[in-house]
């Protein structure tokens, strides 16, 4: 039994209950004992250790629904320790780790290994998404039942789309038995084969093989029909086009169990970033043209997009220091997800509670986690952040082992000041 600990004089933000106002959080034994306007000096139990937040925003820690941790097997790019440090600095208190490790997380024994290792080396919580297909090879369904028993929260082939429609049909039907959401990379693989940037004027000008925007909508439409048939839970990890978002809009209106996500680079950047063949702007799906970027923002505003996740994908310098078409896609994002997304708040596109909703309650709900909200009895995973503080991103000073950020040199406004996991401070600016 440790002494109670209170964060007082904060600006509380709880998207789940749509609470915003001054107050505090009382923590004991790593859990939220109570929270609200009443938590302030004078009302606290004797012996409570108090931290005055000086009016800073206090919200649930962020849940990142989609990140690649590279451990085990690709530790030269990232480890659970370095990803955890980046997450803590970015206000992410729970990371949903994708299965693309070496070996691939398609075996229950590996789930246990990774969970155990995360507990000892990673400062934030980690939950695991199991492989959708064995070895992420897209041909044989993985053991969803055994993986679910071992504790995975979803199944996904991460960056790889499932081209085989029969496999997808069966995987959706099968996932339903274990109530596992199927997270997909929505890009028709034959149409996207060999493409490195989005179709359009830039691609033509630069002479790069492109991927038409409809590659996304085609796969989304295909899967929506399969969801309609199977009733499975389906989530598009990172949508980037107006077309696909319109499909999601219709599916939701129809009442289907579909959700959609995007990543900060899809609402903050467009294909102009690729100019000068910047490989750090090579992502999958590719950065789109301006009208699609605006459509992503529109979809965030009207709730078509439920979740913003980092899509954190560390790549070594060697795999980015190549001709554009040979460079590996992916950007890191754990540390910059919130600050970049705060642009939407500053531009008055989205209110702060709604914005936080996409990075807390919504992903927690998708993954079935008891996280992402201020709730008595829940783990005290909390962040203190300032929406105004200006700073410039310096890739080299980010905490990830790999430095492939798309936002190097960008001026951002707003930053996490302190992060708590289970009531313990794991990062302080």
């Amino acid at each position, binding site marked *: 039994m440790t002494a109670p600990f209170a964060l007082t004089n904060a600006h509380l933000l709880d998207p789940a209950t749509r609470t915003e106002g001054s107050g505090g959080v009382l923590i004991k034994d790593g859990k939220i004992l109570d929270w609200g306007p009443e938590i302030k000096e004078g009302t606290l139990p004797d012996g409570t250790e108090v931290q005055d937040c000086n009016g800073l925003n206090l919200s649930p820690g962020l849940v990142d629904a989609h990140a690649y941790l590279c451990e085990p097997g690709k530790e030269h790019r990232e480890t659970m320790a370095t990803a955890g440090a980046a997450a803590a600095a970015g206000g992410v208190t729970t990371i949903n780790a994708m299965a693309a490790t070496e070996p691939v997380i398609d075996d229950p024994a590996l789930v246990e290994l990774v969970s155990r290792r995360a507990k000892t080396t990673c400062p934030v919580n980690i939950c695991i998404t199991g492989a959708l*297909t*064995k070895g992420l090879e897209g*041909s*044989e*369904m*993985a*053991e*969803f*039942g*055994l993986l679910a028993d071992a504790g995975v929260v979803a199944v996904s082939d991460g960056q790889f789309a499932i081209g085989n429609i029969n*496999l997808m049909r*069966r995987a959706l*039907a*099968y996932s*339903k*038995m274990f109530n596992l959401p199927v997270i997909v990379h929505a890009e028709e693989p034959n149409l996207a084969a060999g493409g490195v940037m989005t179709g359009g004027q830039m691609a033509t000008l630069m002479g790069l093989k492109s991927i038409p925007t409809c590659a996304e909508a085609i796969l989304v439409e295909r899967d929506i029909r399969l969801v309609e048939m*199977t009733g499975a839970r389906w989530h598009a990890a990172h949508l980037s086009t107006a077309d696909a978002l319109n499909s999601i809009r219709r599916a939701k209106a129809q009442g289907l169990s579909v959700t959609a996500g995007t990543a900060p680079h899809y609402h903050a950047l467009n294909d102009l970033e690729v100019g000068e063949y910047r490989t750090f702007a090579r992502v999958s799906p590719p950065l789109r043209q301006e009208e699609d970027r605006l459509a992503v923002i529109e979809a965030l505003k009207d709730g078509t997009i439920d979740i913003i996740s980092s899509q954190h994908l560390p790549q070594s310098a060697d795999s980015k220091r190549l001709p554009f078409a040979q460079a590996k896609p992916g950007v890191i994002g754990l540390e910059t997800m919130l600050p970049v997304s705060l642009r939407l708040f500053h531009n008055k596109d989205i209110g702060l509670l709604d914005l936080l909703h996409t990075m807390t309650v919504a992903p927690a709900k998708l993954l079935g986690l008891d996280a992402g909200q201020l709730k008595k009895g829940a783990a005290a995973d909390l962040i203190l952040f300032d929406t105004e503080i200006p700073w410039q991103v310096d890739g080299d000073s980010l905490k990830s082992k790999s430095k492939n950020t798309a936002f190097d040199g960008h001026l951002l406004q707003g930053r996490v000041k302190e992060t708590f996991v289970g009531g313990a401070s794991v990062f302080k600016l």
Partner: protein
Amino acid sequence: MTSLDTNRFAHRHLLDIARLGAGDINQLLDLAESYANLSRTPDKKQSILRGKTQINLFFENSTRTRTSFELAGKRLGADVINMSVGSSSVKKGETLIDTAMTLNAMHPDVLVIRHSDSGAPHLLSQKVDCAVINGGDGSHEHPTQALLDALTIRRRKGRLEGLTVAICGDIQHSRVARSNIALLNIMGARVRVVGPTTLVPSNANKLGAEVFYTMAEGLKDADIVMMLRLQTERMQGSFVPSIREYFKFFGLDKEKLKHAKPDALIMHPGPMNRGVEIDSEIADDLNISAISEQVEMGVAVRMACLDLLTREGK
């Protein structure tokens, strides 16, 4: 034997269970019961089918069903000829109808056909002058299997009506399941189907079976647990991720069997995949497993079918 001689069977062929009535089924089972008893006596050879020709036309490999039909015919005194794909002209490109016409010209009295295409026996029956027995067609029906299962249940439980029967496994591709669902419904049993979502048609309830996706729910208070064979090609990631996962969630072991009634009877049409859909401990326990008796009843049921379908005046 003689008491039933005046009984005529109301059908010319045995193509599926779905078109039989309770009276037809009882007639077949009653006669089969007497053949079952006869088969246990030393002098089991009959001459009812003497001079009749039975052709077993097997387009799909089968040892047990073909042997069972062959033995049934021989016990009744018929001349039995086995034709299998390997030795037939089908390999040379002959169509099913051409084969049928050729065989028909030889004046057989009964044709037993097994084919990998659903509906093949129906097509054949329209082209020949003799009785046709469906020995299993595609994923459609396997009527003699359902009849032998019914006879086995009736002998062990004394009735079919009111029993709860859980059919477990690959319902989607199973002709055994379809025939059993039909027969058990006609006879007033309560039918459940249990299996993974990838192997149970979601509209199975329309066929008269309650659908379950967990063994615990599906087996709850069941009188009969009927396990189906899972084909090897469906185990490795296409319909089911792996054998170990299938066995864990849908393989019948002592633990899952606890959900059924304490005196529940275990059945399997064979051949069994031990450690895939059924644990050896259960398959080999003669107190709860009726698997050997099913094979025995198979011969008796097929004798009854051959007898009834070849009676004069048909």
